[in-house]
């Protein structure tokens, strides 16, 4: 009983903390709410008319929504760039900030699930996937696997975060017997969620651009550089706006790990490009559409080369210690990584995989305003969730937000 009441107070105090803020905070929230409203309005149009308001057609049946979904699964998996140094190597500077990686994972998975919801033709039937009332085609369908592992990963991170914060709120340390196994499981699970998402594409023999063994490792490499890019921004913001102490070494170490991930990412892309261009089979068509265009169809070519340039720039900036440890070039590198990986995972994965289509037809897809508005709305929801989580987590971890009558609790529940 007391635990329930305490948890209730934890929720109430957290809500209060989330609603406490200065002008900048509320401006940020207002912008997010505006984007969410715009997204909701656009989605209403989509729900009433149908997915025909998007630019997707039979020839290119997946587009912007699924591209964003794929990118965000990568961002969610990137939590392990913090979890491994923190829990496996017990490295102090990152140990202190690992919770932010988990919060990012929760926000990213929220966005992933929302993107799937806005992409399906019948969101009112999503329960058809859930046993026992629905039917999940497990283990044959990879999307079924994806639903299972994404929700499991979400649950693990959610339980760990809520437990740690609740315990901190009540002035207690987290229970290692609960947290450590869960966190250690979350490491292969993070690899798992992005591998399964890669398998979603990888397993389709009908799409030669995707049907390549290199896809799963390449997804992971690009995830491990794009996810932490967001984190690095957030960590610098937290240092400015709160009294949270984040050591420079933590940020630089993360940037260094991102550099290695980016190298692997570029290497794997290069290996793929070699195979396509050198063997020069019919499959080259899709890679050629991405890098060179086919005939008059050249919509994606500028994106292809931008992505490559941005990624190479990011690699250089992060691998050279001087530019890695310079705050200006570090942030340029983060931006370049995020943009490069976003283009390459979004436009660069989905569209060339489906263009030309299975019967050789080229329909040039690019998102409509509706799709952009809905996607922006989903991103805003994710950012809002992340903002609220941070607004609650930072004070709790700093000890500024704790249960009332804490001292009384402390006296009666020593080392509970």
């Amino acid at each position, binding site marked *: 009983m007391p635990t329930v009441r305490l948890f209730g107070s934890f929720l109430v105090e957290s809500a209060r903390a989330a609603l406490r803020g200065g002008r900048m905070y509320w401006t940020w929230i207002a912008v997010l709410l505006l984007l969410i409203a715009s997204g909701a309005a656009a989605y209403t149009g989509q729900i009433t008319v149908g997915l*025909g*308001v*998007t*630019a997707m*057609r039979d020839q290119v049946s997946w587009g912007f929504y699924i591209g964003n979904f794929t990118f965000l699964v990568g961002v969610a998996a990137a939590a392990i760039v913090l979890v491994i140094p923190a829990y496996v190597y017990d490295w102090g500077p990152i140990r202190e900030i690992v919770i932010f990686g988990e919060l990012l994972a929760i926000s990213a998975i929220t966005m992933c699930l929302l993107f799937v919801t806005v992409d399906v033709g019948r969101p009112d039937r999503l329960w058809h996937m859930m046993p*026992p009332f629905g039917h999940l085609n497990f283990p044959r369908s990879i999307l079924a696997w994806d639903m299972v592992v994404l929700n499991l990963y979400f649950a693990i991170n959610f339980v760990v975060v809520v437990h740690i914060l609740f315990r901190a709120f009540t002035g207690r340390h987290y229970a290692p017997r609960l947290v450590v196994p869960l966190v250690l499981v979350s490491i292969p699970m993070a690899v798992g969620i992005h591998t399964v998402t890669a398998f979603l594409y990888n397993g389709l023999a009908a799409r030669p651009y995707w049907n390549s063994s290199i896809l799963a490792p390449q997804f992971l490499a690009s995830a491990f550089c794009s996810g932490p890019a967001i984190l690095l921004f957030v960590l610098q913001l937290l240092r400015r706006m709160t009294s949270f102490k984040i050591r420079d070494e933590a940020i630089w170490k993360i940037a260094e790990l991102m550099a290695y991930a980016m190298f692997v990412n570029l290497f794997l892309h290069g290996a793929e490009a070699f195979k396509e261009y050198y063997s020069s089979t019919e499959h080259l068509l899709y890679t050629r559409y991405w890098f060179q265009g086919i005939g008059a169809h050249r919509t994606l070519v500028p994106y292809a080369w931008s992505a490559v340039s941005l990624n190479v720039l990011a690699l250089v900036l992060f691998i050279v210690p001087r530019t890695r440890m310079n705050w200006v070039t570090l942030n340029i590198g983060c931006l370049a990584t995020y943009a490069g990986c976003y283009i390459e995972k979004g436009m660069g994965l989905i569209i060339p995989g489906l263009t030309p289509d299975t019967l050789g037809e080229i*329909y040039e897809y690019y998102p*409509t305003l*509706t799709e952009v508005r809905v996607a922006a709305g989903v991103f805003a929801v994710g950012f809002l969730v992340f903002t609220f989580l941070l607004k609650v987590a930072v004070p709790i971890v700093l000890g500024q937000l704790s249960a009332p009558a804490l001292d009384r609790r402390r006296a009666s529940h020593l080392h509970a």
Partner: protein
Amino acid sequence: MRRAARLTGIAFAIAIAWTMVARGGTQTPAPQGAPTLPSKPSAPPAEPGVRVEVPPPPFSDGIFPCTTCHNNDMPANRARRTLTDMHTDIVLKHDAEHRWCLDCHDADNRDQLHLASGDPVPFDESYRLCGQCHGEKYRDWRAGVHGRRVGQWNGAKRYLLCVHCHSPHQPRFKPMAPQAAPHPPMRPK
């Protein structure tokens, strides 16, 4: 309270599981009332010598019976020539280098055709005549693999005569106007 919640959850789960198993969840229902296969599921390829039922030959209006004109009053002229008095609408484009009318049409009885051996063939069995030269197509046609057929895949089918699709005098399939092309995919307005 905790025990009640736990028991409730277990009961719910058991009820669901039992109902799923009891209703025989994943089996395809037995096809009751499905049409049973007839003992001879499909008409076998018509054996040579077996007559094939076909609709009447596509004669032009009033042209048959030929003996209306080609009777004892009009003696047969067996000289190879291009016709100038009648049937000038027929231009032979069917091995015209080697063949002419009376190689297929019977000079003595214009209401029938004749094979190379001289055996008469009625117009509604003209496939036997075509089959003399076009043996593979004839075999395929008898099996139902050449030419259009309508009907039942597991029962009665209707054959057409060769001449229903191929004019005997200009057998090459005529080009036709295609139906409209599909609309290409378009972005929403």
